[in-house]
């Protein structure tokens, strides 16, 4: 196949890949809108998409301020999880006994539902710190587990090559183990991005029952109590968009870091 025809086909493919989901979305929204109008459903039961959009615009100051709060927590939780997960994985990898001593506790943190931990944390920590810790707890385990897997997935021949040239512990870590682990690490980070948002949201909702909060999740809970369903939907929409943006930013990071060498980031055709 000639290059031009391939490019043309790829262009057409991309066109459909964008057009089709957009068309599905438009169709779905239109059906929703018409159903609400025809069946005359009151907005506190199900608001029409147009009303949700209007609410989003009217309440933008409040909603976007809340979005800012939630995003700040999410990003801080994510960064701490990334740092903590990667550091812990490296420590585990370098000192077996450290892993023996602490790995079970990492698992305990992972398997205990965050919804159950959050109220407890709110008793002992200031609210802001408690929300952050929740975001961290849910996000750090996938980073830890994936990085550990990556550090242990080093090509055996490359390992031999490093020992043939008398590489130090540090050289093996820096020049062999960390680069080998990078694709796994980035995979863990992609999961962690979404999870830290979930952690922040869960903690905010839990914090609400403790009496304070101003993040998006708090707005959702608060709007629910007030039967302000359009605002609930608007806040939910913002949360979804935030989640999608986080996901694609991390996918972009993944692509930029791996595009020259890793199978996952390469074109099918060479």
């Amino acid at each position, binding site marked *: 196949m000639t290059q031009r025809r391939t490019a043309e086909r790829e262009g057409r493919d991309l066109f459909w890949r964008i057009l089709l989901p957009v068309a599905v979305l438009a169709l779905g929204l239109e059906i929703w809108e018409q159903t609400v109008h025809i069946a005359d459903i009151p907005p506190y039961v199900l608001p029409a998409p147009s009303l949700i959009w209007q609410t989003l615009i009217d309440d933008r100051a409040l909603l976007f301020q809340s979005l800012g709060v939630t995003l700040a927590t999410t990003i801080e939780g994510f960064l701490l999880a990334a740092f903590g997960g990667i550091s812990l994985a490296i420590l585990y990898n370098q000192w077996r006994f450290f892993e023996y001593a602490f790995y079970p506790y990492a698992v305990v943190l992972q398997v205990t539902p965050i919804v159950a931990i959050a109220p407890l944390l709110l008793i002992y920590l200031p609210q802001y710190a408690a929300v952050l810790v929740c975001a961290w707890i849910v996000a750090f385990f996938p980073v830890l587990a994936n990085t550990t897997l990556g550090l242990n997935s080093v090509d055996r021949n490359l390992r031999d090559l490093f020992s*043939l040239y008398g590489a130090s512990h540090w050289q093996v870590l820096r*020049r062999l183990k960390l*680069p080998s682990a990078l694709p796994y690490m980035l995979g863990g980070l992609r999961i962690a991005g979404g999870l830290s948002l979930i952690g922040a949201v869960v903690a905010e909702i839990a914090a609400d029952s403790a009496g304070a909060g101003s993040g998006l999740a708090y707005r959702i809970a608060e709007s629910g109590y007030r039967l302000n369903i359009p605002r609930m939907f608007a806040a939910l929409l913002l949360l979804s968009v935030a989640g999608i943006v986080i996901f694609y930013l991390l996918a972009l990071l993944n692509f930029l870091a791996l595009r020259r060498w890793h199978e996952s980031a390469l074109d099918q055709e060479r």
Partner: protein
Amino acid sequence: MINSSKSLVTLRGVTKTFANGTIALGGFDLDVRAGEFLSLLGPSGCGKSTALRIVAGLSEPTQGAVEWPPEAAAISDPGGIGFVFQDPTLMPWASVFDNVMLPLRLTRAGSDRADARIEAALERVGLQDFRSAYPRELSGGMRMRVSIARALVTEPGVLLMDEPFAALDEITRFKLNEDLLRLWQALHMTVVFVTHSVFESVYLSNRVVVMAVRPGRVSSEVAIDAPYPRDANFRTSIEYAALCRRTSEALGKAMAPGGSA
């Protein structure tokens, strides 16, 4: 080319038993002479790769000894041995240049002249124009050339090669065989080459050591006394055919008694 018969490294009564009880080598004796091109030929499972790893110091013999005479002792230091694996074993995240630089980095040798040495190594294998390419972007044969350049960049006293061309197509393999012989002659090094191909071992070597299985040991030795340089004409010569037949017979004998799997 007449080689001195001085030993470079000697294996005496080497046995290797793996943790699972497999006896890879049993009473293996080998004398690698300085400057020679030696092939270890045998069926799979005869421990030829294990023997190579023991020479490289990547594996410890269970019994027996690996002896480097005093004048060759420096070779067993890091950088003195080049090793080429069956796979190119390149770091996929690093460019060709960085891959070839790795041994210099790890041994912290000649950092002042590193660039020049890497360029020289790449030029030897004909890849000077691909220094910034990534392994994924190269063909199998080119990746193997990078692997060879990397093994040569420290100017090792001995080059150990573990079936390096087994996964390549025949055309590429022939080309790399020729290039390898050229490098061996130009650099005056010792090569120990593991293969299961009679034709490859005869084409390349001064001496073919034929190994038998269970346990891995030396069965016989065939001297390949055809003169170098050897080229495509040698491959079609009567002499080559005769040497291949002799080596095949030796291999057949090595495999006969136990009735290999």
